[in-house]
């Protein structure tokens, strides 16, 4: 099976390509990327005026299966992700059972093999049941394919356990992904601590709770030599610690979510739980710092933190509602609308954050369009507009922070391992 994509603007930061090119796919791999390819193909995609990029590698997502199939399944999540131009996902371990052992990761792997419509990479838990008390079977997790470990929303409090985990990760050469939050400082907060929490009469989550934990994790990464990735960075101080750490050669990378890079705490003022996330939306100065960090490379990647929740758990009283929003189907359009159309990032810079960098950080053979690479490709109409609606989502859950928003950029095709996995209807 051969696919020929003709006449697109091909953006491939791995090879410094940003030019009109043809791409020939043969089987699961890219065969050629050239000015003009005149080969025969089973399927020819006329992509004039479109952008072709390596498929998005989303390094932070909650697929909810096994355990909460009422919120999302691996089948529904990957269907949704395809519509958003995503071809690889890193699945967080906070499922039921928690992915903390050889048995549980094998269970997950089986579901992925049977139902996933794209590459789903697995992230194991750092500690058993993510309780922060006892290390999980990191060796077993790695053996069955975990490319990263994380306790996700339950940041490990104990320095010793975290250090030991990093030493294991270093030995196995897997990534340590950290949601930085010192719960003794964030307590039961639900919005940014400060004027916003005061105005709304809600408990606040302080910036200290994030940046103090980030500071500790950076220190442990320095001591152990492990590769640390700080996920969903939300505040200026954290960014500054990461910037300094990078300067001094510590192996630290970072991502930001689509919502944290374009919304601030004022979005919460009407108590809509679709703006309740952890970390919370922060202040205008944090938003500015995030954009600057995307520009200067302090923030390497954009990741959804796709967090599906049923209406019963989300459309309720604000302080009782679950944290988080879905993100697969809007990540690319939000990034185009908020970063490229506004001049924060160029197209090649954006593709780096969405596809190339996350693949490099996870050490997976994705994120590039060179011959021999996996044929994971997204074809997008960059200027076409669409409106986000609940009805339009393929995710089982509809808790988006971008409902009713008009966005730029429509995914036309998503190709996974050389097969057209999604084509816009």
């Amino acid at each position: 099976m051969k696919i020929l994509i003709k006449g697109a603007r091909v953006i491939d930061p791995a090879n410094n390509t940003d030019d009109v090119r043809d791409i020939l796919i043969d089987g699961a791999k890219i065969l050629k990327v050239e000015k003009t390819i005149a080969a025969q193909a089973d399927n020819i995609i006329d992509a004039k005026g479109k952008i072709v990029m390596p498929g998005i590698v989303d390094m932070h997502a909650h697929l909810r299966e096994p355990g909460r199939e009422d919120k999302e399944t691996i089948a529904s999540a990957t269907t949704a992700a395809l519509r958003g131009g995503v071809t690889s996902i890193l699945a967080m371990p906070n499922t039921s059972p928690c992915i903390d052992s050889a048995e549980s990761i094998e269970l997950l792997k089986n579901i992925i093999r049977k139902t996933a419509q794209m590459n789903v990479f697995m992230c194991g838990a750092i500690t058993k049941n993510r309780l922060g008390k006892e290390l999980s079977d990191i060796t077993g997790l790695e053996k069955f394919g975990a490319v990263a470990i994380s306790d996700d929303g339950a940041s490990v409090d104990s320095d010793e356990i975290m250090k030991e985990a990093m030493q294991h990760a270093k030995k196995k050469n897997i990534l340590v992904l950290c949601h930085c939050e010192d719960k003794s400082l964030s307590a039961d907060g639900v919005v940014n601590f400060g004027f916003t929490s005061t105005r709304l009469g809600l408990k606040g989550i302080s910036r200290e709770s994030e940046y103090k934990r980030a500071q500790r994790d950076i220190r442990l990464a320095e001591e152990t030599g492990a590769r640390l990735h700080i996920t969903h960075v939300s505040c200026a101080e954290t960014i500054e610690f990461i910037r300094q750490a990078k300067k001094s050669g510590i192996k630290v990378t970072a991502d930001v979510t689509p919502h944290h890079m374009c919304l601030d705490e004022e979005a919460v003022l009407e108590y809509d739980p679709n703006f309740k996330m952890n970390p919370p939306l922060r202040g205008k100065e944090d938003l500015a710092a995030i954009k600057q960090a995307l520009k200067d490379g302090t923030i390497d990647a954009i990741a959804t933190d796709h967090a599906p929740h049923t209406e019963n758990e989300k459309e309720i009283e604000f302080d009782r509602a679950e944290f988080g929003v879905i993100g697969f189907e809007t990540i690319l359009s939000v990034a185009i609308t908020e970063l490229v159309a506004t001049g924060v990032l160029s197209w090649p810079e954006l593709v780096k954050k969405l596809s190339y960098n996350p693949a490099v950080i996870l050490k997976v053979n994705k994120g590039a369009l060179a011959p021999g690479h996996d044929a994971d490709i997204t074809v997008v109409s960059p200027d076409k507009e669409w409106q986000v609606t609940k009805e339009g989502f393929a995710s089982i859950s509809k808790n988006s922070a971008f409902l009713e928003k008009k966005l730029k950029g429509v995914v036309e095709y998503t190709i996974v391992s050389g097969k057209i996995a999604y084509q816009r209807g």
Partner: protein
Amino acid sequence: MNTRKTIVWTKKDLLGLEYLSRQEIELILSTAESFKEVTTRQIKKVPALRGKTVVNLFYEPSTRTRVSFEVAAKRLSADVINISTETSSVKKGETLVDTGKNIEALKVDTIIMRHNCSGAAAMLARHVSASVINAGDGWHEHPTQALLDMFTLKEKLGRIEGLKVSIAGDIAHSRVARSNIWGLIKLGAEVTVCAPKILIPPGIEKMGVKVTNNIDEALAGADAVNVLRMQFERDQSNAFPKQLEYFKTFGVTRERLKKAKKDIVVMHPGPINRGIEMSSEVADGANSVILEQVTNGIAVRMAVLFLVAQANERLKNENTD
């Protein structure tokens, strides 16, 4: 100030004073003046809301606010239903939105809600077409309390503009404080909040208030002081010594009032903790307007019930045109 007369109330709900303009607040206060006159008549009832149904939906125990709303609604000839969540399907796990929609299915016109979660009234208002009046949501707002406080102040001192008003007590956890601050600032008062440091919420100065941790400073030169209830019942641990300590440092006493303006107006939203935030002599003294506040609460709530019902009817007529 003729412009005031041309203002028409257009909001279906009353969720908080933060969301109102000065003109809208003044409209409620002037409407309340007319209704206060009604409450002095021999027959204290007008047919303004005849045929309308008002529901009191209380997720927190409350007697004074619920009764005040009930009396207000009855004086407007509305039918009133009280739902306390202790005895309703909420106990069986029904969500707020479902409860709201079920109440609405009974063709209810206005839902008055008290809820322990900040933002609950906003959530309900988004999901029902009935009017929603916030009777207190978490630590967020209690707009009718602040309106009756302002009504009482205006009645006593003739104006709000330029007045120095201090609010003393647990500012951090007080919806009464927040509503009063938004309302008073919009009407041109100078507001000072006074509490121990730990009870001053972060960034409160951005609401336009001054902050002090010294009650004498809060009383000095003030035209009025609104003393909030200290809710020690939330925190049972060592409550008694803490209460004494609070009274010693922050309690409003006759001695402290001697250093304040002679005719300082002393308010309290009730119920009073005598001997904690305020001494009995002050509560019952010449400066206290605490019982007048209760009386004025009826007129203010009549005004709010009347205005939102009128606006909602107009909105519904527009939609069916």
